[in-house]
């Protein structure tokens, strides 16, 4: 027997699909509405200063207050490597601001007890990955420019990769 499409079938089909599209579209677009398109967040790059402002073997904590970054110059007593790099002062565990402990040469996070060494490697506590490196470069007039703000980190997973942490963008060789 030939199956007929009745008027009822057509109306049922259009009504149910119409309602589905109506509700689904509403949900999706309210979801889109909730995603901010403009961010009024702090500037993304700052001029940290001249290389002389950051003596060898020190962790500079002056920029923490306004920009949440440390600028670190390799060298004794903290490391045996060379170069300047910047760590973003956001614990990779749950986003608290760790403190630099000058006596033990460690970054310590008060929230859940994560501990990082001077290169940002997570050595104890719950932090799942090393501290993120901020992009760092020399401006033409010889000053150090640091990309602050978490937006510069991009995908957190990628930022943890060892080669990326040692590349030209994240380690300033003098």
């Amino acid at each position: 027997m030939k199956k007929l499409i009745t008027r009822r079938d057509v109306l049922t089909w259009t009504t149910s699909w119409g309602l589905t599209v109506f509700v689904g579209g509403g949900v999706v677009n309210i979801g889109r509405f909730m995603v901010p398109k403009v961010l009024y967040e702090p500037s993304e790059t700052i001029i940290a200063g001249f290389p002389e402002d950051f003596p060898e073997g020190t962790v500079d904590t002056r920029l923490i207050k306004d920009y949440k970054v440390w600028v670190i110059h390799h060298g004794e007593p903290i490391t045996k490597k060379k170069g300047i790099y910047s760590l973003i002062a956001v614990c990779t565990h749950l986003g608290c601001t760790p403190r630099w402990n000058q006596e033990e040469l460690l970054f310590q996070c008060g929230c859940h007890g994560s501990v990082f060494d001077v290169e940002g490697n997570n050595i104890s506590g719950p932090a799942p990955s090393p501290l993120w490196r901020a992009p760092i470069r020399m401006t033409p007039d010889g000053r150090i420019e640091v990309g602050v703000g978490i937006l510069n980190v991009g995908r957190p997973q990628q930022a943890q990769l060892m080669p990326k942490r040692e590349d030209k963008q994240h380690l300033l060789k003098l």
Partner: protein
Amino acid sequence: MKLLNKLIDSQVFRSIIRHGWPNTALNRSLIITSNFFLHVLPVKVDKSALRLGYHFYLGVISFFMFIIVSLTGVLLMFYYIPATDRAYENMKDIIFIVPWGRVVRNMHRWAAHGMVLAVMFHMLRVFLTGSYKPPREFNWVVGIGLLVITLLLSFTGYLLPWDQLSFWAISVGGNMAKATPFIGASGPFSEMLGFDITNDISFVLTGGTVIGQNTLIRFYVLHCVVLPLIACGLIGLHFFRIRKDGGLSIPHKDLEERRKNESGKIKEASAAAIQPEPVKTYHLMALMNDKTPVVATEDKPYDEIFTWPHLVVRLVLCFLVVFTALFVISFIADGPLETVANPSVTPNPAKAAWYFLGLQELLVYFDPWLAGVVLPSLIISGLVLICYVDAHQDAQGGLHFSKRAFSVIFFLVGFIAWFALIIFGEFFRGPGWQLYFPWESWDIHKSPSGALHNLSSLAGWSLIIGYFVGGMVLPKLLWKSFYNRRGAVKYSLIMFHVLMFGMIFLKIILRLYFDVRYIITTPWFNI
């Protein structure tokens, strides 16, 4: 007296209240059914349902806490401005300048805490008395929804004072959302789906990549409009279902006693060849064939009294006690307010609100996607499942420990563990989240714990697989009746939750005694 009677009989009064003084059975019925605010109540309630020692008025207390929180919240909204540079100053104004502002703010804070506590213990009472069993399963689920909404209301309200406590609690919460599997930037599998910190769930929730103005206004709207509306809807549904599911649960001991008396009465009556009086004399709806929509499925012996005045008086008394207690506490104890939020300094230690301290304690042992997302979800799904995997549906109105031994013990262990972790986090954790006893000074420096190691992949995987396979199979072989009564689906759902719960303690032991960081490691996630 004459004047009063004249007033009651006047056209104006009669247009508002259409019945006489509630001193006759008819008027006591009418005052309930014809009053908008009271008609949520039944006209008559079972005497045993009013027993203080059976339900402790915990549900009613939760509701009154919600009323008080809503009223004081509206008062606070007259002064509070959700702007990062003004919120904290508004708080100070409310506390120090606004007449009664300090007490109103304290009442809002303490009633919110009280509501969380009352809701949790209400859940414990409903569980222990078996009141979640058929026909009340769905109302249990609605109750779990209300528990979650209560916690979310407290959490979103936490940010609004914009002090150090609130800023860092929300910072941690937002980062937990970031660790959600699939839809959070730092959670497992999110990278394959293309989520990063500029489009993930935490970005939408906090309105940006840092906690700032966008976060404050979002949490303000959630706290003052969205969540209260959802809560009101769920509370209405919860109350409605109490009525439709056959009223409050009645202690089974009372029911048995009544059945005994009743059978005696019937014997006497049949000896005298007179028809016994019908047990339930009042019919809720005249049009219904039976007594009430659900109650009639089982012929219970009723012992009912009028809601007005018996229940109404108790409700008013309960409200007065709750209000007075909160008022006195708010007069004496101030809600905490730390220094203004400072994104560059994290207080050490930074503790979450007490009801989340149990989860914060788990963060020491598990990655955030597990401790902050998966384990809480499992707690909720486990609570919801309680009413659907139940094997003894008749064991209601009391503990029935011989029938419910397993579920009662599991629930109590979970409930106690939850509060034990909270107490541990509150009183035994100091700077750097190190172990400090309550009598120890936080000035003593404690160096962070030593290096941790991961289990080798062979040991880790065989431990996990052995644990889950063994945990699934062994109870089935050892307690056959436990399995047979529930069937494969219910059994595996129960055991999955039991095993995940056990895994928390397995991991804690491995961490504390064997310095194990992860049991298994994969490129995407670690456990």
